[in-house]
């Protein structure tokens, strides 16, 4: 497969993104490799084509943000908001991810091999997230739809104000957020976890995971839950 190399020590992020938006989609299948990212923000945002983008090194904020169809691999760690609001495709962080990873993702798959910071999967709207390590506090806050698999531990207030998203956690949960509860794993849950782990290239026994979903007690205004609003 042909490869195009973008050296961000020589070119601007804007040039890279313009290439990915306008030139790359018409060039047929080829790999775009980004070298020397050095934590630059907004690498490969707003893609809308089945591109393959490898970022060799650490990325700053919003890498792969609002992705559609593309496969973005970060061979390093990612800053805040990696894969935020993605619609489809995959974003794979081979290191660690900072805060708000996969925030409001509507679709696609975000894989984080290491740990994720605060608010991972906040406002999730249908995307899938697999975290090989642990997630910080307030992860999946107000998550509406989609699935999160957390192979490590979860911080405080996991799944606070959940809607219909479902979380699977293998490790310890420091605390659950408002309206979240642990539920029994069904066969469908085991299958879902197995499928997501397989897509992420991770190997864990699905029986080690617990399912967290919404109690649905805050779906309608509740005078007895005044501190939950």
């Amino acid at each position, binding site marked *: 497969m042909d490869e195009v190399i973008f050296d961000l020590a020589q070119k601007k992020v804007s040039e890279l993104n313009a290439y990915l938006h306008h030139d790359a989609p018409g060039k047929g299948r080829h790999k775009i490799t980004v070298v020397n990212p050095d934590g630059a923000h907004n690498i490969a945002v707003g893609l*809308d084509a089945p591109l393959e983008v490898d970022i060799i090194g650490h990325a700053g904020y919003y890498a792969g943000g609002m992705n559609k169809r593309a496969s973005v691999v970060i061979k390093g760690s990612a800053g805040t908001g990696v894969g935020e*609001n993605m*619609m489809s495709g995959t974003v794979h962080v081979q290191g660690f991810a900072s805060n708000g990873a996969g925030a409001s993702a509507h679709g696609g798959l975000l894989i984080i091999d290491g740990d994720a910071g605060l608010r991972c999967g906040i406002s999730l709207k249908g995307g899938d997230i697999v975290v090989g390590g642990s997630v910080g506090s307030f992860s999946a806050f107000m998550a509406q739809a989609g699935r999160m698999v957390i192979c490590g531990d979860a911080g405080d207030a996991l799944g606070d104000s959940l809607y219909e998203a479902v979380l699977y956690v293998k490790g310890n949960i420091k605390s659950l957020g408002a309206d979240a509860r642990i539920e029994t794993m069904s066969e469908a849950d085991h299958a879902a976890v197995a499928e997501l782990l397989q897509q992420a290239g991770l190997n864990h026994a699905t029986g080690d995971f617990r399912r967290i979903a919404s109690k649905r007690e805050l779906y309608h205004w509740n005078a007895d839950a005044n501190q939950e609003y």
Partner: protein
Amino acid sequence: MQTKPLSLEESYGYDRKTLDYIRKAAAHGLYEIRGMGAKRKLPNFDDLVFLGASMSRYALEGYREKCVTRTLLGTRYAKKPVELEIPITIAGMSFGALSANVKEALGRAATEVGTSTTTGDGGMTPEERQSSKTLVYQCLPSRYGFNPDDVRRADAIEVVIGQGAKPGGGGMLLGQKVSARVAGMRTLPAGVDQRSACRHPDWTGPDDLAIKIQELREMTDWEKPIYVKVGATRTFNDVKLAVHSGADVVVVDGMQGGTAATQTCFIEHIGIPTLAALRQAVEALEDLDMKGKVQLIISGGIRSGPDVAKALAMGADAVAIGQGVMIALGCNGDTYRQKGQNISAVADYNALGAAPGYCHHCHTGQCPVGITTQDEILEQRLEPAVGAKHLKNYLKTLNMELTTIARACGKQNVHHLEKEDLVALTLEAAAMANVPLAGTNWVPGRGGGI
């Protein structure tokens, strides 16, 4: 037997309104949620008047001399700034809060008069994109329905930090209005009382916002203007921080701004009046030497052509209107027009415990005139063509009043109106707007002779 006369002295601190509030709280254990804006009396643009031309200024002839209203927004960084025929825009209001028919009517009218309309929480509907020549797409904390395709389809993007009716608060849409279509757009179960976050999910603070704005620019190839909207509170600092974050346009929404559903305690007690906010916003831009480089849109209780003219004279580049637009469509009217007939809506107002002219029941979804509803029957009460005609008339009237006033002040361009054209009728307005009290040179806090 002699009876003792009744004492009907009402308590100032515990008047009937306060008693009613306490009784409702005691009965329900929940705060009141309602629509529209602050109902309390606030200093506003009525407290300012223009000093028309006379011996010291040269007036323009109304029928012969043109007065320019063209307005450019987003000239700081955007490759394609928004160009409007008039400086009067339509404020962000969601599909969900409003029916699809209303969103279409807004787009049609805005397009006919050459201005922009704005999406709201919940995303962009095909109807409003199709009907709006210039559409501003909001990026809100909830990100309900936020879609990169719509970002690319938009003409400008407005990052909403806050709203004048509820600075610091998130949105609400009660279950009655979360129809199947609304729920689908927002990825929610139908019928839930929808809460929106009050903070964005992927950034915290102005330094983060600067990067977020760059992301939006990168994904749109730096073409589209980025607006930042704040609810009016610490406006001087907030506007400076919005500019620091890279905004092309700052939108400041004063506390008279409306809402479809918010706690009454927010609406009436949080935020500062539009008049005060506008003065602070302009001073912030001047302090940064960014006046004219970053455009300012003011909203919150702009009702008339004189309001628009005063806002521009104080330093705004444009205004945004929400409640006035709804009233032009028929909100709070005693009839609605359907299939060529005027039909009374009074009984439906009464069923809500309201009456024409007093209604703020947008949150119920039972709008008697079919504006703030998702009900399939009620929404038919606002026909897009009828609504668009009335709204077009309203916007045209405002613009005519604006140009008439500008000419009277000797201005060939409405953007040449200036603070020096204004005086205040009250001490409060003089202090807030930083203009002299009428008949004096005295500006509270700045000195000058009485």
